[in-house]
């Protein structure tokens, strides 16, 4: 079995005084693609943010390639090889597309070269010298994803990357994620769009009220369709 690259145990997190995560246990192995699914407000985004140390407070255990990261500041966690594509995109508005793409520091070997990223998202090539803030919503989404591919991070935390994208692009993204997976990237995908996710992922974690309510392997999805539907409130 491939090595476990990301593991959380009893991960709890707070925003100010509100306690949002109540103990999340995740195990992600090298080269796997897992999703976090669940209803709005279940705590999926927070899980990613807590792994990276971006919540106000957190507790429990986060191990990246075996190293305990719960006490590390965010930049040290990132250097363990995590790439993050946030929910609200976080494109730098005052930097150009190109600057956004080349900004992030190298975190490891095997980052995609700039041309390849631009080939993946032709819209970006066209707007390379526009300021990030001037891009359309979809273009920003592409940029947010594209830029972490350049860093060589091998573990990607992707939050709602299909959000607001044209169906053609969603399809393209699906191909991109599959491609990355093929190249051995490890991917944690937070998705609302289960149609998109189900064909990509090896396993699904269902998050509910800040806890893991169920874990479903890809091959079980068909059999447990009803349970999934209930958990997602479809």
């Amino acid at each position: 079995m491939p090595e476990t690259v990301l593991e959380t145990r009893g991960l709890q997190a707070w925003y100010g005084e509100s306690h949002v995560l109540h103990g999340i246990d995740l195990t992600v192995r090298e080269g796997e693609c897992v999703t976090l699914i669940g209803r709005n407000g279940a705590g999926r985004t927070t899980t990613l943010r807590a792994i990276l140390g971006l919540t106000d407070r957190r507790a429990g255990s986060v191990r990246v390639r075996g190293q305990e990261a719960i006490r590390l500041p965010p930049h040290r966690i990132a250097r363990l090889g995590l790439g993050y594509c946030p929910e609200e995109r976080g494109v730098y508005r005052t930097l150009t597309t190109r600057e956004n793409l080349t900004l992030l520091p190298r975190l490891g070997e095997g980052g995609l070269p700039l041309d390849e990223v631009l080939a993946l998202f032709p819209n970006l090539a066209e707007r390379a010298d526009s300021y990030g803030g001037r891009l359309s919503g979809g273009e920003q989404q592409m940029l947010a994803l594209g830029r972490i591919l350049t860093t060589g991070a091998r573990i990607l935390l992707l939050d709602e990357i299909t959000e607001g994208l044209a169906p053609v692009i969603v399809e393209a993204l699906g191909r991109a994620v599959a491609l990355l997976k093929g190249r051995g990237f490890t991917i944690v995908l937070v998705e609302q769009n289960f149609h998109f996710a189900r064909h990509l992922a090896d396993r699904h974690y269902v998050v509910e009220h800040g806890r893991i309510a169920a874990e479903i392997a890809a091959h079980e999805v068909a059999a447990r369709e009803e349970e999934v539907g209930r958990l997602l409130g479809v």
Partner: protein
Amino acid sequence: MPDTALETRGLTKAFGGFRAVRGLDLKVRRHAIHALIGPNGAGKTTVFNLLTKVHVPTEGQILYEGADITREASAAIARRGLVRSFQISAIFPNLSVRDNVRVALQRRLGTQFQFWRSGRTLTVLDEEAMRLLAEVGLAEAADARAADLSYGRKRTLEIATTLALDPPFLLLDEPTQGMAIEDVDRIKRLIRRIARGRTILMVEHNMSVVADLCDTITVLQRGEILAEGPYAAVSTDPAVRAAYLGGGHA
């Protein structure tokens, strides 16, 4: 009364050398649900921004109910009844959910500059606010701080707030973006209900929403109209399929 609620003539927006919207002639029928779709970067949000004067048009005219509003300011346009929701959730985070809606309702009292009146004159709005919240399924969260809602519920709240203005013309920018499927259905029903007696122009990437709700669809590409018509016609247009829908949609 003319049949057209909103019309643009030769609407153009250039950002430096880049023309995001190019000579757009758009007509929105009164009481229709009209969708604006198109690939990312086609200029949909820019059109909204032009209509609500976040940007000033480089060229062209905007007519609302026959009146030229090309030169009017944002707030003035909103007061005419042309109201928008935002692509990224826009709420008043430190107000309670109820007060979010009440702020919008307050417009109709016309007392917003009356600093000498008692705040109790606003309680008449509470009932209406609760009705609107119930309608979008937020009634039980009425007293929560809006900032504490999840993303999806914030968007729901935003729609409730927009509805509170009872605007004859609604601009919805991706109303279901980021919502769980159950919420999407609820919003769909909601939009259909509120569309009675109103005109709606919406940008949306969720084709199921567009297919179910919209009478007319305008497909934009590179700032120009690529196709226009009912869903059945547009969705089978090969140009539209190539540029936007891709292979997955029948």
